[in-house]
């Protein structure tokens, strides 16, 4: 199956939360941050337009005046002027294009930086409602969509409109009829371009569909190669691929028509303009109403309409795409973090780890209470195993301790300090968090273990690994501790990733540990190290474990059984088994059968 394809948003999709003018204003405001550069660009653009309009006039005056008068000095002066104008034109283009790029790229840098900062500040509820793929797309693709417009597209499109107008006005000073002939092609050019762009967009849509089936088929074939081979099914796959390949061929041939006709047609319309100038100009010349220089000048003007028209018509497409991107980026930027530090928040000091949930009531959405009047007192150094069905509120309890969400009633205190009175950052640094999916960063095994304490020595790393009983396994990896773990740790097995995350947590040595145990069973070669490692990790610190492993549950100081957000039982394994209550049935129905499969001979 083609996982990982079509994950991107439709680039043209808009939700219209912001109006076009709001988006434009906001984007421009990023450019206005560089007022000096902006002023430079405006001056240079104006200068450039002046030169574009003036150059053909110089040519005309050379032909009409100097050629006829035979004034060599005048000729040298005019030719020199023409050359100077060309060099000036180069320097203004360089200056203005570079300044625009600089401004635009700085703005892009700025937006990306702001967005990242915002993403760091946003609370957990934001990540709950948007998939990480989409969030990543915000900070990469969507900002790129704005990039083209910001670094030149916006300003130069406006500049091109002025070019068209400036030429349109200038030519009327020289000859009315030829001016009309020259201007007449502009609307034709514009309409033709718009027509073809529309055609090409439609064609592009259909080719995008066929090419994505080709890609999907290829992706499936490549990732399923092993299965195909082991069942010797190659021939059928080849036939299936041929179908999608052929469909793509046909839709592209269709698209080729519009694509091939577009530019030659536009250029022909330009030729039509010159034809009119030659025709009308020729007549006027015979009548002595115009000069050769004027005709040459008009021909030069006529050909300078192309670029502006192409840029202006393209502007629409790039604005659509930029607006779509900008809207999604601004939506994230405008999101308020649901949890903010108090103004007088202080740093959480070193703690012993006495945790109290005092009459806590909490709901994610109003009206759907998850925890109600929840009370729990955890002594320093105690290990608590949270057990219960899915949805009983286990994850909520640990999320609240980390203040990923704010509670509605009651208080959560660590060593008597309400967690809302301290900064979130200092709170997080006191609580170690070991997640179900052990997330590793690109880099070596060693780098990852060192993550929470960058200054730790190699010896400390080996020691930590030894303590959790993972040394033999990690040393057994291809390159031992220097093994590159790959993107998100993908080159290690799940169990090995967990062991690395244990070592990472042990090295960071927090006084409070929250551990969300993985539900999946792991090959026993790694499993036994994990069970040993867990013991070491939990020792001597206040720990709350969302427990699935029998060993973890049995070894906990206290088991807390949750049901519908309430504590229904607490006690040790032995005590609870004797009670024959909720825990007993959980044990019989879930914990034991799972464990049995991995441990007990049938």
């Amino acid at each position: 199956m083609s996982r990982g394809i079509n994950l991107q948003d439709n680039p043209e999709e808009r939700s219209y939360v912001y109006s076009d003018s709001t988006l434009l204003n906001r984007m421009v405001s990023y450019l206005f941050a560089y007022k000096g550069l902006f002023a430079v660009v405006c001056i240079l653009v104006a200068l450039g337009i002046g030169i574009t309009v003036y150059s053909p006039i110089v040519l005309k005056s050379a032909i009409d005046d100097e050629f006829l008068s035979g004034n060599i000095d005048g000729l040298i002066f005019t030719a020199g002027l023409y050359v100077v104008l060309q060099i000036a034109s180069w320097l203004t283009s360089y200056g203005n294009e570079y300044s625009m790029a600089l401004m635009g790229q700085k703005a892009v840098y700025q937006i990306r930086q702001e967005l990242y900062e915002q993403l760091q500040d946003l609370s957990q509820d934001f990540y709950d409602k948007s998939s990480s793929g989409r969030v990543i797309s915000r900070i990469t693709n969507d900002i790129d969509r704005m990039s083209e417009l910001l670094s030149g597209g916006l300003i130069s499109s406006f500049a091109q409109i002025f070019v068209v107008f400036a030429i349109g006005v200038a030519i009327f000073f020289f000859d009315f009829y030829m001016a009309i002939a020259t201007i007449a092609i502009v609307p034709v050019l514009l309409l033709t371009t718009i027509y073809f762009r529309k055609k090409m967009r439609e064609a592009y849509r259909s080719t995008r569909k066929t090419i994505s089936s080709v890609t999907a088929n290829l992706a499936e074939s490549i990732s399923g190669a092993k299965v195909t081979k082991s069942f010797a099914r190659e021939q059928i796959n080849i036939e299936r691929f041929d179908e999608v390949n052929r469909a793509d061929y046909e839709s592209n041939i269709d698209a080729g028509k519009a694509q091939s006709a577009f530019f030659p047609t536009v250029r022909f319309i330009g030729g039509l303009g010159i034809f009119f100038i030659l025709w009308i100009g020729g007549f006027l010349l015979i009548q002595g109403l115009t000069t050769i220089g004027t005709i040459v000048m008009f021909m030069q003007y006529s050909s300078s309409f192309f670029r502006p028209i192409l840029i202006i018509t393209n502007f629409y497409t790039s604005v659509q795409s930029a607006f779509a991107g900008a809207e999604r980026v601004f939506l994230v930027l405008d999101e308020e973090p649901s949890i903010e530090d108090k103004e007088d928040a202080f740093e959480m000091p070193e703690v012993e780890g006495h945790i109290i949930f005092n009459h806590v009531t909490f709901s994610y959405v109003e009206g759907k209470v998850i925890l109600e009047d929840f009370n729990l007192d955890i002594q320093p150094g105690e290990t608590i195993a949270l057990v219960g069905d899915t949805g009983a509120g286990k994850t909520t309890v640990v999320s609240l301790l980390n203040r990923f969400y704010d509670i509605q009633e009651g208080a959560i205190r660590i060593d008597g300090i309400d967690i809302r009175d301290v900064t979130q950052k200092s709170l997080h640094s006191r609580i170690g968090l070991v997640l179900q999916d052990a997330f590793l960063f690109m880099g070596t095994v060693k780098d990852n273990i060192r993550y929470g304490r960058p200054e730790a020595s190699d010896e400390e790393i080996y020691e930590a690994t030894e303590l959790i009983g993972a040394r033999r396994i990690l040393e057994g990896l291809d390159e031992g501790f220097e093994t590159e773990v790959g993107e998100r740790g993908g080159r290690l097995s799940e169990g090995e990733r967990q062991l690395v995350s244990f070592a990472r947590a042990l090295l960071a040595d927090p006084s409070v540990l929250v551990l969300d145990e993985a539900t999946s069973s792991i090959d026993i070669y790694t499993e036994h190290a994990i069970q040993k490692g867990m013991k070491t990790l939990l020792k001597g610190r206040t720990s709350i474990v969302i427990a699935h492993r029998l060993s973890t549950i049995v070894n906990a100081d206290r088991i807390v059984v949750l049901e519908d957000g309430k504590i229904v039982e607490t006690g040790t394994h032995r005590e609870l088994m004797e009670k024959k209550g909720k825990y007993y049935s959980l044990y019989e129905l879930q914990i034991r059968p799972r464990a049995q499969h991995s441990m007990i001979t049938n």
Partner: protein
Amino acid sequence: MGLRMGYVSRLTSYALKHKPLFFGFLISAIIGTIFNLLTPLVIVDIIDVAIPTGDYNVVIQFALTYLALTLLYALFDIGGRYGAAITAQKVIYDLRGEIYDSLMEKDLSFYDQNETGQLLARVTTDVTTMREFLFWGYRVILIGLAQLIGTYVVMWWLSPPLTMYLLALIPFAIAFIYVFAKKVRPVFYSAREQYGTLSSVLAENIVGMKVVKSYAASEREFERVEKENRRFLEERTEALRLLSFYRPLLPTVFGIATGFIIYYGGLQFIMGGMSYGVFTGYITLVGMLILPARFLSWGVGMYQRADAAGERTFYILDHRDELLNPENPVEVDKFDGEVEFEHVYFSYRGDKFILKDVHFTVQPGQIVALLGGTGSGKTTLMNLIPRFYDVDTRPTVEIEDGIYHIQEDNTVEIDGEIHKVQHGAIVIEGKAYEVQPPGHVRVDGEDVRNYLLEDLRRNIGMVHQDPFLFSATIRDNIAFAKPQCSFEEVESAAKAANIHEFIVEHLDEGYNSTIGERGVTLSGGQKQRIAIARALVADPKILILDDSTSSVDAKTEMLIQQALERLMVGRTTFIITHRLSTIRNADLIVMLEKGRIVEMGSHEELIAQGGYYAGIAKTLKEMELAADTPLITSEGGATSE
């Protein structure tokens, strides 16, 4: 350079398979260019010939000639473009088909050596780059050259001395092409690479945001992002600066040439050596010289990209499989299922040993449990049986910690020194190290390399913990190995795999439901059971089960376990599992570390040995006891009442 020319000319050989089209569009492009080159001459004649006659009709005629030439240029240009589009598409169609066939034929080591994502890029992005070249490249280079030469010819025709002066523009054009290829584009590529780095840092931090926060590493990560973002800003800005510097330089050089023409042409005009028409024609012609410079620069860029893309894509076609069918295959219908590994060594390209001296035999119907971590070699070992890889074919010698291949000339290089094999051993500093002859993997006593690949693989079934299913119906997926088999057969396999009930009761279209993006989504446990049914239909004598991880609930786990047990009956089974029960029941437990067997035997034997396995079993047993004690007491309490 000789080799590097290869890929584009190879691409050309594909285009040459469609000769009429290929030459047709090239000729059409040339004819269009010729018409275009004639237009300035019409302008010359209008001014010099038509207007002096004072006859309106003559002027119209000439102007219409101009229009006709422009129209012909447009038509032939369209023809050239359309022809190129069709050719490009045909070539891409052929090429994709060929690549696909070749992908289907590749052996598995090819897929292991190349990451899926990269392979996919080679057959998508790189192929698209080549299509760009097919559409634009040939035409752009050809038109560029034709227009360059043609313009000078026309200029020469009008005024040889002025043309002589204007030849000075050629070095400028060449310098322009050179600067873009060597100076500007590389900076763009490096900025794009930096963008890749920035994106992956961002993606990583977003996915791992919780970890970042919980280790209070926000500031550190913010700095890392800032650093990469700033580098991207710098590189990208530098690339754009170079572009804005060099791009407008080209029209400026030609503008300066126009200034020169004004001066020189003016002098000639005053002295009576040049007409208005010729002067005007020159102004137009100089403008026409910009296009070849642009086109050729562009063409060079495309050529470079197509060449690089070609190298990556043709790699797939050129990659030779090491695994071949034997010349005189041993015929076989059904295996008994005896598997033997005899001193098996395996290395990728001869340097990194994945398996070292693996040696054991499995009797038909036995169960072998494999233990070991990532990099232990257990997966590679399994892949040797269906010949996804072959064992090393050269003899080896182990000296201290190192393993070395013996070369064909019976020598071996160790730490830069060449040693010769004598009497089946290498002698270093008076110590003899025995040379190990190449290993074998045998099924039913016959080396697997002597069977036809198809026969061999048909008799070996593989079930993975995260099995790959195709976007087809459930029925097609189960009947994957035997597309013609009856529905009853599919159904009974599904029943044995404990998945029939689910299919019938929970899926609207039952066995005809399509799996995948546009169809039903299955959980890991359901996929696994469909894969078991698929293996049951295939009915292999040897089974390879990878059952190491699965996040399923207890009930599903029981269903899978039951299905697997049914599947294993009467088959030689290799299993990688997390279930201690399965391991205890195995006839043989093989524990691998870094490619070497460290412990081997039955559960009881290994416990008696008191090694690492015994340690594992003990830890797990302790947990089991700790959990069971209260059960006994509570039951004991109940009986005493």
